[in-house]
Each structure stands twice: as structure tokens, then as C-alpha cells.
């Protein structure tokens, strides 16, 4: 496989490392090696130190497959929006006959990572989810993330009275904060994080680790105690 290169294993931001993992591309085995799930990219290095890396923006999806009837071994499936050179027997003509739209469709490459330790699949999957979330789509033109929110400006003006705080959108609010204010914001967010999470005992200090772990578990954190009383109130308002 000509896309395999020699490079040192990543050392920074490695969320998960899985040795004894076989890598397959389009069904062909590339050998056994170590999968490195790092914040900057996904890398796999065969035991002889050649391997490849995938950038998260090119990864469309990843999944844990335990369906042995679909594929005989439990693995981490990764679909990439890119073409990789592969020695395949499929000719362009054959593909064209079967599916005319192939030329218009983006290329995809399917990787499977089969760890010898199947119980690691959950951790591998979660680590990839976390890393993917660190690479939002920079070309996202559909969604309006400009925070222009005219309605918010109107409210802020209407409600600007004395010491009642105005309602800032993210960018506006942040620009009003001094460096100290921003530090306070971060500390308070960290405190909020702890008030709803009993697992983390960092006394008021929001370290990188606790942010990472906390956001990783964000979906499991349940702020139900705060929620319970609120619904009734909300209905009254409506």
C-alpha cells in the first residue's frame, strides 16, 4: 500500500492508544499495529513503524460493530471521505455499470480496526467521538453561527436598567469581559460543572483534564435535581 509512511507515533493529546490492532482497508489487511486516537488526528502504525494518519474532518462516521453476521470480528469501523490507493480488482468500468452515480458521489474509504482486546472498543469509540467534536466543520455555511440575534440586542436595550444584568450573546458578552472577567467566567463554569457532577473532586479549579473528562461525559451528566422543580414553574409562565 503506497500510502503507508514511516513516522513517529504521536505523543501529544493521545486520548487512547490500542496496541495489537489490525487495520483493514476495503477488506484488505494492512497488518497488526497500534491505533493512536489523538486530538489532532487518528494514526495507525504497524509494528514495523510504517502506517497512516487520518484527519478528523475527513472522517464522516465511526462505529462499533459487533454484528458477526455482517463482519466476522468485532471492530471499530471508520468511514473516510477520501480515496486511498488500494490494489483492488474492481475496475472503473465495472463500478460504472453497477452504479452510474458513482462518478458524482464522493469517494469513500472504509477502514476497520480490529483490536485483539474487544473490550476496548467502547473506549476507542468514545475517544474518537471526543476528538471528532474538537474538529467542527469549518465549511459549515448552512448554519448561522454569527450570533447576530437582533432580538437579543433589543432585549438588552429594554432591560438595561441599573444593576440588572443585560443578556449578552456569546461574542458580545465575551468582548465585555476583561481578562479577569474571563478568568472568572471560566472558574464559574467550572464550578457549575462540579455542582452537577459528583464524580470530580477538583476544589474549584477547572483543569484541562477535568474539562476533557467532564465534557466527554457530558451526555451522562444528569442535572435532574435542578430540572424537577422548574417544569412546574415554566408551565405557569406559559
Amino acid at each position, binding site marked *: 500500500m503506497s500510502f503507508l509512511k514511516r513516522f513517529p507515533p504521536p505523543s501529544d493529546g493521545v486520548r487512547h492508544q490500542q496496541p495489537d490492532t489490525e487495520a483493514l482497508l476495503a477488506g484488505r489487511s494492512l497488518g497488526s499495529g497500534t491505533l493512536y486516537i489523538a486530538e489532532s488526528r487518528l494514526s495507525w502504525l504497524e509494528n514495523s513503524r510504517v502506517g497512516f494518519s487520518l484527519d478528523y474532518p475527513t472522517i464522516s462516521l465511526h462505529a462499533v460493530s459487533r454484528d458477526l453476521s455482517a463482519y466476522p470480528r468485532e471492530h471499530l469501523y471508520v468511514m473516510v471521505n477520501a480515496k486511498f490507493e488500494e490494489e483492488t480488482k474492481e475496475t472503473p468500468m465495472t463500478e460504472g455499470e453497477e452504479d452510474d452515480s458513482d462518478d458524482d*458521489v464522493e469517494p469513500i474509504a472504509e477502514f476497520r480496526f480490529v483490536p485483539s482486546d474487544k473490550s476496548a472498543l467502547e473506549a476507542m469509540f468514545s475517544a474518537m467521538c471526543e476528538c471528532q467534536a474538537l474538529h467542527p*466543520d469549518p465549511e459549515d455555511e448552512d448554519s448561522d453561527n454569527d450570533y447576530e440575534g437582533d432580538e437579543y440586542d433589543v432585549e438588552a436595550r429594554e432591560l438595561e436598567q441599573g444593576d*440588572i444584568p443585560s443578556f449578552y450573546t456569546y461574542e458580545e458578552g465575551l468582548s465585555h469581559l476583561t481578562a479577569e472577567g474571563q478568568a472568572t467566567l471560566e472558574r464559574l*463554569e467550572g464550578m457549575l460543572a462540579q455542582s452537577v457532577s459528583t464524580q470530580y473532586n477538583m476544589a474549584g479549579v477547572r483543569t484541562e483534564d477535568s474539562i476533557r473528562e467532564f465534557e466527554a461525559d457530558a451526555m451522562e451528566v444528569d442535572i435532574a435535581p435542578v430540572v424537577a422543580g422548574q417544569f412546574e414553574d415554566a408551565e405557569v409562565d406559559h
Partner: protein
Amino acid sequence: MEVSHSLKERTIAENSLVILLQGLRGRVTTVELRDESAAAGRVTSVDAFMNVRLAEVTFTDRQGAVSQLDELFVTGRNIRYVHIPDEVDIRATIEEQLQAIHRVRYFGGRDKGRREFPHAKHK
């Protein structure tokens, strides 16, 4: 009701319909991808960038082959449609999500917050 713990993500969600998708957490639905494959499963989470995590997935690839996946994460960029289950009350779901965000935002002065910012603009 779970809300993102990132201020940036809460703000994005509040300003976009992704907030509706976040309200689908726990529900079973189908996500159609750009490459015309589809994933049907239970929504574990949806973040502000519309990255969707599903569990107990039945995946139909673009050739039509069906397989089961324990968990699936698909990037927002690659999603074409997310089906909203018929039984979901869209308006109520959006409002509940917004309330959850506001509770987090005003956790220090909750009551004061509610009187100051009537929900009129969300109606």
C-alpha cells in the same frame, strides 16, 4: 434534560434548530446521510455542530446492505436528514431545551432571570 456544558455550544444551539435534535435524546429515529446510507437507532446525543451519536443502530449502506452497529457517531456535515418521530411535539421539545439552557445560564439568579426575560420571544 441534558445541556451542553460549553457556553459556546449552548449559544449555538439556542440560535439554531439543532436544539430540536438535541431534544430527541433517548428517542429512536432514522438519520439519513449525504451518501444515501441511513442509520436507525436511539439518539444518545447531538452536539451543537449536529454531530449525532446513536446506539443500537441498524445501518443500511448506500448499496442497501443492512448491518447492526452497537454505536455510531456521524459528523453533522455528513447528515442529510434527521427524521423527527411522529409522536414528538416539536414546539414543546424546543421550549424544553431552551428552558434547560436558561436554567443553566441563570443558575445563580434563577428567579430574577425569569422575571427579567419573559419567554414571549420564544412563543
